[in-house]
């Protein structure tokens, strides 16, 4: 046999081997259908793991991990969702009706600023008088960063940084103008704030939910301790876009709504109020409008004006 025939023979053997190999591989690896639309993340990932998942969270995320999580969590979701329905406050149920009204009109973008005024409010909410926000503290993640930049109240104090959550609030340094580099303790002690606005939660959706909720309540207790006269405004977390929600088992609107309804339940409408600006940005299905965002999480900067207008028209004046 000459050299070429030998090589061809060898190659054919290689093909056969390869097919056999792939066939067995298919049987063992690929037969497990990749799970789509997972509802819930693993309940208790250790904190360190979240930071490292950012590394491996590519489109090619490992199969095994996703398959194991779904089987666990479906029952969890059904219970939490029904919880959510019962615990929703009057205010949020009112908003959900306006969501559909507002978006059905298919209004041009600019009108969301005027819509902001008409979102539901508690009886004691009115327009904020001049200087209302001078003794206000805003606490939050990157979306609050956005508000501090593009919907800024001059005179207010902002403690915001990208990725902020209740777990690392004391380890984080503010990235916002005016408080840059300061930690939370310093900012909180700097002034007797009369209003405290919070939007936190999206970065900790993957953690143990009960612990997260406890953290949030602790944070509020702590703020009340430091600023006894303050009115606390709890923001419901902004929704994410349809596209973004579909590809994420943790950061999606099912999770956000579940957590938001807990936040709404914290409101006593005396010292603590719940605010939901989602209707300003949502489409009819309750997703952040695709045309309002590039990454599916952060609204374009021009839309923060509507949020600002909402806050200016939803103030409790004492």
């Amino acid at each position: 046999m000459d050299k070429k025939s030998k090589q061809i023979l060898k190659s054919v053997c290689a093909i056969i081997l390869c097919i056999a190999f792939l066939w067995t591989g298919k049987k063992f690896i690929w037969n497990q259908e990749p799970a789509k639309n997972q509802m819930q993340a693993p309940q208790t990932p250790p904190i360190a793991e979240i930071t490292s998942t950012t590394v491996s969270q590519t489109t090619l995320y490992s199969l095994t991990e996703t398959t194991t999580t779904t089987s666990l969590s479906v029952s969890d979701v059904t219970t939490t969702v029904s919880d959510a329905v019962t615990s929703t406050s009057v205010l949020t149920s009112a908003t959900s009706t306006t969501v559909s009204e507002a978006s059905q009109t298919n209004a041009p973008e600019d009108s969301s600023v005027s819509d902001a005024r008409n979102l539901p409010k508690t009886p004691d909410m009115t327009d904020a008088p001049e200087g209302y926000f001078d003794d206000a503290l805003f606490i939050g993640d990157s979306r609050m960063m956005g508000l501090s930049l593009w919907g800024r109240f001059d005179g207010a104090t902002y403690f915001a940084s990208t990725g902020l959550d209740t777990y690392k609030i004391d380890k984080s340094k503010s990235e916002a103008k005016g408080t840059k580099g300061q930690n939370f303790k310093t900012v909180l002690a700097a002034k007797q704030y009369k209003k405290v606005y919070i939007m936190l939660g999206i970065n900790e959706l993957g953690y143990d939910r009960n612990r997260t909720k406890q953290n949030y309540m602790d944070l509020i207790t702590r703020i009340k301790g430091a600023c006894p006269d303050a009115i606390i405004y709890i923001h419901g977390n902004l929704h994410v876009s349809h596209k973004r929600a579909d590809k994420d088992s943790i950061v999606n609107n099912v999770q956000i709504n579940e957590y938001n309804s807990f936040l709404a339940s914290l409101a006593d409408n005396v010292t603590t109020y719940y605010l939901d600006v989602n209707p300003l940005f949502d489409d009819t299905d309750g997703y952040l409008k695709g045309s309002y965002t590039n990454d599916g999480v952060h609204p374009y900067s021009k839309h923060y004006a509507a949020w600002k207008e909402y806050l200016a028209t939803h103030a409790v004046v004492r």
Partner: protein
Amino acid sequence: MVFSSFDFLLWFLPFCTVVYLLARKKAKNLCLLFFSIVFYAYGAMEIPAYLYLVLGSVVVNWVIGILIGKNTPGKKLYLTIGLVWDFGCLFVFKYLDFFIRQFNHVPLVHLPLTHLVLPLGISFFTFQIASYLIDVYRGDVEAEYDLIDLGTYILMFPQLIAGPIVRFSDVQKQLHRRKVRQKEFLDGIQIFIIGLGKKVLLANRLGGLWDDLKNVGYDSISTKAAWMGIIAYSMQLYFDFSGYSQMAIGMGKMFGFRFPKNFDHPYLSTTMTEFWRRWHMTLGTWFKEYVYFPLGGNRKGKGRMYFNMFVVWTLTGFWHGADWNFILWGMLLFVLLVLEKTYYGRFLTKHAFFGHLYMLFWIPMSWLLFAVSDLKLLGVYLSKLYGYGEPALLPDDYTMYFEIYGKWLLIGLLFCTALPENLFKKIRKSRYAPVIIIPIMGAILGLSFYCIYRGMNDPFMYFRF
């Protein structure tokens, strides 16, 4: 599995390297091929069919290569079949939806889109296989009878997904006989680390600015921020792509291959013509060898030459992506190259100062067409660059961006020049080379690992809000 991920850096590459070094000489190609298939399978995890497609494609091209190599009268037919198959795959997966969308503009036509996901690296390996078939047809190389060697050439994981586009003649000898020498192995590691640093430490940092602007919305930014953004994007693209190529070249060297150079400080060019001789050089060579010259190059008169250039640059644009902005981008390059060829190219080369000034403008401008696929958004961005768009929401937003990204822009600027590389070459020749180089390499590697660990490695996948 991208090169700048822990899966690759901590598991795949070390394991593969060790097995490869331990493998007997005759088994080295098989080993590389095996790991390349694993690499591709990992990438095609969600759509296993793509793995079969790629493997099947290798077998098809192996058979056709042999048939062409027999030099029978039918070889032209075989070549046609081979090219139709290869470019047919590329067309279906990359361009079909684009064409369907264009057809759907015709009234009463309503074809469904296929929504096919692009198989990993298909643009690159299609060009490699095509070069092999054409070279065999021309008699420049002999057909490869050993499927494992051919498969290794096509699927070799270092260059599989992002080039350089290695021609078969470049590596044929090494495929059959190569030696892994200690010095080259160590050189390869160094090149790899430098490439990794470019990608992780420079490209990804600079990419942050471009991402920020995208998220903020082009219509809200200031003119200065717009210019900063497009300059940052230009640098990101360069460090990203050249870093990736360098990693490929470095790994190739570790395995005993010499891949062709892909970037030669393109941003130092004085004309667009020169730029494209120094940017993605293997792609330029491919188009020259397999499109421009076969069409007659510049030997069939001026008119024909312009036509040939037009074809080459339309295709180059289209190769980069199936969208109008890429075609527009190719057209822009064509126009610039023609203008340079006929009018001012020689002047710019002679007066380097004006050449650099000229390129300083056209490099970011051309990449803008490349970066923004939505033509409406492109218009918005252009209006921002020239200051006739809507007023910025924050007129001084550029100071904020400069605070965050200024240092990276300056460092990036430095690394666009040849200075760091020349310095590095000098150090390597000096007596103290190991004393200096080892800590430098360690630092780059350590910092890169740190950045990847912090989840800052890939600007497109960050998810901290």
